[in-house]
């Protein structure tokens, strides 16, 4: 009854057939089919007026609107993310006033329509005609006319960033919560301060969780910027609506906007893919990928090895 006595009846070379999931493939083909039909009918439907689309796709007002959209999105997302980190850290702080203040911030800025916030910042003068520097509730030392400080662009940035900060705060908080306490304890145990623990241990790992919803926010922001029309700042969607309110070619001009949004979204998604991959390092262990031929006696680790070889040699990340 030796356990090592192994049956050695030689088998013929066996062909490996991967598993087939018929249901999934049917679903997949259905999806592709419906998509194909939609695209087909879109391109052949004359009501879309593709000629008008072509005419305005690169029109200067459209391009300048796109530029403003991108600028507003970029700046307000950067400020929003930084604010979000601060808000999240405050919310998770043990100081009850700080955490309540952070909660209140999230509540207030998520709870008021962005339009109202934009109007508020732009027309601050209606409420506070002068911005005063001075003792709270006491005498003012310096007074400036609010309207002169807050340009439409400033108001748009203020409104968008403060609003975004409230949303990002929740996203960052969810990311931080995803990190096990073992990690923070290990960081503490090597003597890291709270800040260092956040910066070196928690946030880099939380990024995996934070990035996809942040992508959502960025892509959302691209579109929210159109709200700044209420304060007379015209970005992409406003630019096209100015055109179609003149020539009534609503559908083709909305298509122009949609095409640009889709293009930017695609670029952002690709960027997101690479950022995600960067923060994925260390989390997805190399799986042997497709094994070449189990059941056969081909020299193992040739195909699979070369396929995964670029993964196994991780760059020695420079310590910043």
């Amino acid at each position, binding site marked *: *009854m*030796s*356990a*090592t*006595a*192994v*049956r050695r009846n030689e088998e*013929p*070379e*066996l*062909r*490996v*057939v*991967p*598993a087939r*999931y018929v249901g999934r493939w049917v679903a997949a083909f259905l999806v592709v089919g419906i998509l194909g039909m939609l695209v087909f009918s879109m391109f052949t439907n004359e009501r879309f007026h593709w000629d008008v689309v072509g005419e305005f796709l690169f029109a200067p007002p459209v391009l300048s609107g796109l530029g403003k959209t991108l600028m507003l999105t970029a700046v307000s997302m950067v400020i929003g993310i930084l604010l979000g980190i601060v808000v999240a850290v405050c919310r998770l702080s043990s100081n009850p006033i700080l955490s309540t203040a952070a909660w209140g911030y999230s509540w207030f800025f998520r709870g008021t329509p962005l339009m109202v916030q934009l109007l508020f910042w732009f027309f601050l003068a209606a409420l506070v005609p002068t911005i005063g520097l001075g003792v709270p509730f006491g005498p003012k030392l310096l007074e400036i006319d609010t309207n002169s400080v807050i340009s439409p662009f400033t108001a748009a940035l203020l409104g968008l960033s403060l609003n975004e900060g409230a949303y990002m705060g929740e996203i960052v908080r969810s990311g931080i919560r995803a990190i096990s306490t073992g990690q923070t304890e290990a960081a503490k145990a090597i003597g890291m301060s709270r800040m260092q623990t956040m910066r070196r241990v928690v946030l880099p790992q939380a990024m995996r969780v934070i990035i996809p919803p942040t992508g959502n926010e960025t892509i959302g922001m691209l579109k929210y910027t159109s709200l700044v029309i209420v304060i007379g700042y015209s970005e992409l969607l406003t630019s096209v609506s100015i055109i179609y309110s003149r020539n009534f070619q609503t559908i083709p001009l909305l298509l122009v906007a949609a095409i640009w949004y889709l293009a930017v979204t695609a670029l952002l998604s690709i960027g997101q893919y690479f950022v995600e991959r960067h923060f994925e390092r260390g989390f997805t*262990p*190399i*799986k*042997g990928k497709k*094994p*070449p*031929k*189990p*059941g*056969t*006696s*081909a020299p*193992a*680790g040739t195909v*699979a*090895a*070369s396929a*995964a*070889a670029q*993964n*196994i*040699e991780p760059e020695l990340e420079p310590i910043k």
Partner: protein
Amino acid sequence: MIEPMLRARNVHKSFGHIEVLKGITLEVQTGQVACLLGPSGSGKSTFLRCINHLEKINDGELWVKSERIGYRRSGNSLHELKENETARQRAAVGMVFQQFNLFPHRTALENVVEGPIIVQKVPKSKAMREGMELLDRVGLADKYKHYPAQLSGGQQQRVAIARALALKPQLMLFDEPTSALDPELVGEVLDVMTSLAASGMTMVVVTHEMGFAKEVGDVVHFMADGQLVESGSPTQVLENPREARTQAFLSKVLA
């Protein structure tokens, strides 16, 4: 000839360009307790994971009873199994992980009864009763309501053992089941395992405890560097090792 419970033939496994298993060939008979010994990084965990098809092997064959793990042969083709078929194969094999991998959102008892209730569709009250019995056997009846984060290392390990046993598998794979246990508990877990072995359960146990291997093991397999160096009865392998590599390993073992 009685069909062996586990049969591995020339199993190869690589991660990227690192070959971790370099052709493992062994058999474990039904009712046997096979101990897997070997230095750190020799591929013991990886081998267990291959048996449970958590890793796809690159070459070779793995059979549990009459079933080829992960594939079905028809004619001269090997058809990769679908996920639900693999799941069925796995249900017959229990596994205790080196890192426990308890479900953090479930209490000790819930961890134990999850498999029986969800996978095997055992009636809830029966599963709960049996789960409590198992927890009792590993000395944790009073901790049944605790979440894993509220348990000490050794307590977590025992919950993991109970969880695997709850499925009453034909074949149990233990990856260092006593690493976090104190000597007293090792004895208790050992009792549980011996009674399992007596009830006919087949076990593959990765362990670093020589004493454990001697007491419970029917066979000892010594692995090093992805290869099976030596197999035999505990006394033979542990006391009179044939191979130089085994001798070197054992010579460093503390008394």
